[in-house]
């Protein structure tokens, strides 16, 4: 069974530029999550989708971050414009249904200079 796929793996951008991350969850998983993980900390949930609907985006900085999940499968997370403090690893995870164990993709390491 294929795992969660993410791209790109690494991205370096300058502040005020924009960036987009892509995620393809495990086939059949209805719930998709985007997390931000800052070095030395646990993952912090940015947004949770159930199929193509948003369940929780309370910690998403909506003035600069946006996310969508087209047709309830793939998802993209965008940052525009990026700030220095956005430097982190962005993890995508999926689960069969909400509250189930989550399976993580390899993450995208973002560096904002």
């Amino acid at each position: 069974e294929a795992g969660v796929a993410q791209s790109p793996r690494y991205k370096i951008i300058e502040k005020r530029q924009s960036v987009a991350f892509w995620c393809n969850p495990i086939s059949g998983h209805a719930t998709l999550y985007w997390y931000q993980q800052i070095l030395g900390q646990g993952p912090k949930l940015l947004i949770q989708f159930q199929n193509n609907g948003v369940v929780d985006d309370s910690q998403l900085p909506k003035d600069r971050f946006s996310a969508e999940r087209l047709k309830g499968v793939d998802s993209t997370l965008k940052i525009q414009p990026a700030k220095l403090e956005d430097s982190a690893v962005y993890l995508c995870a999926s689960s069969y249904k909400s509250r189930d164990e989550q399976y993580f993709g390899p993450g995208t390491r973002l560096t904002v200079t």
Partner: protein
Amino acid sequence: QQPVQSPQAVILREGEDAVINCSSSKALYSVHWYRQKHGEAPVFLMILLKGGEQKGHEKISASFNEKKQQSSLYLTASQLSYSGTYFCGTVSSNTGKLIFGQGTTLQVKP
């Protein structure tokens, strides 16, 4: 509210045992445990649900005290491969959202 993990770091010799604790102030629906190696994604270890159901790797054991909102992960006869950062995640009965603790770093030495 973020769960609190203890200890923050542990250093073991191969074959020794360790216990990692996770505590929440909220009524919990479930507790998740994940291990993350440096530069890699978190990997699911175990989920413990209210009511006693558990699901996870056979070689991992854990407990969940629903009344105290506490969980413990037991690592016995540790191996070098056990090294990494262990995160507990708690799902509150109210929100259903998974919130991760700050992590416990485990280093197993030969």
